């Protein structure tokens, strides 16, 4: 191969590396940072016609979906048609039912009609740290808040089986409509 062709090939290789953002050491570099992936989402469900605690949405995390060490992010963007307070509860269960379910979060909505409920949980094997002291205390978001000075609540989960995360609401009147704009469960693998 002539020297000029070799130089041209080197230039082309350099340009290719620049375009692909790869190092000269060869091989494609992995994207930086741990990937955050959507496990399940649900949208459009509503609750109306009753003031009983009612399932708004139930999201299945199939068996063995979680990693041994990962962060779990659960969100609910909602709309309600009343200014009155409506409690949103989040439960964890191994079956699609509220029977025997563990309440892991609460937010008593204020007068505003729209909101975004966010939770981050720290998963290590079969333990899930709720990063909050009392999960039955009203809280909109457990991220980006100040430190807590007492132990946080840790529950036991069974990630080798199906897991259900269930949102419920209890409307103030039968005429109120509570809408799930979008609910999601995401995970971020850390090992």
């Amino acid at each position, binding site marked *: 191969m002539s020297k000029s062709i070799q130089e041209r090939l080197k230039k082309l290789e350099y340009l290719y590396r620049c375009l692909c953002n790869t190092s000269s050491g060869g091989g494609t570099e992995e994207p930086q940072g741990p990937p955050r992936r959507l496990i399940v989402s649900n949208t459009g469900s509503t609750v109306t016609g009753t003031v*009983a605690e*009612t*399932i708004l949405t139930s999201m299945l995390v199939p068996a063995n979906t979680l990693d041994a060490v990962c962060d779990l992010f659960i969100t609910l963007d909602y709309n309600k048609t009343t200014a009155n*307070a409506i409690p949103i509860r989040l439960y964890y269960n191994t079956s*699609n039912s*509220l029977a025997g379910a563990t309440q892991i979060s609460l937010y008593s909505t204020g007068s505003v009609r729209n909101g975004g409920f966010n939770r981050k949980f720290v998963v290590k094997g079969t333990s899930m740290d709720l990063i909050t002291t009392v999960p039955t205390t009203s809280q909109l978001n457990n991220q980006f808040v100040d430190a807590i000075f007492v132990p946080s609540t840790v529950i036991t989960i069974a990630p080798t089986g199906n897991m259900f995360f269930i949102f419920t609401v209890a409307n103030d*009147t039968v005429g109120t409509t509570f809408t799930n704009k979008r609910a999601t469960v995401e995970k971020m693998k850390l090992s």
Partner: protein
Amino acid sequence: MKTIIDSNTGKVLYATSIETELQENEIEIDALLTESFVNPYWNFDTQTFYEGATQTEINDVRIPQALEIDLYYTGLISELLRKHIEKLSIDGIAIPQSVIDERYRLRAECNQKILALGITNFSYRQQNLKL
């Protein structure tokens, strides 16, 4: 939409429009709870819902709710009047009738919401310094 109740006691467990796994002691009925009870139960004979909580349990739940409503409306009224009271006390400018009317409307709305909770005794207000 179905209401899930305890087949032994009649206690209302929850309602749902999605398929859930019923436990042995659970049954689903078509009737929906339309009245706000602290501890709702289902009467199998009369086919109606009823309150299973004691008056003490009701007060324990309802009074904090009433207090929350009271404080919310107190804030609205204070904000409405703040500037007008400043004008009245410093410049001697009377509070407009429309503002006074709005204050009465807010108070009536507040009382209506508290009455709707089933509370008729407002003595809890005397124990709160902000009210």
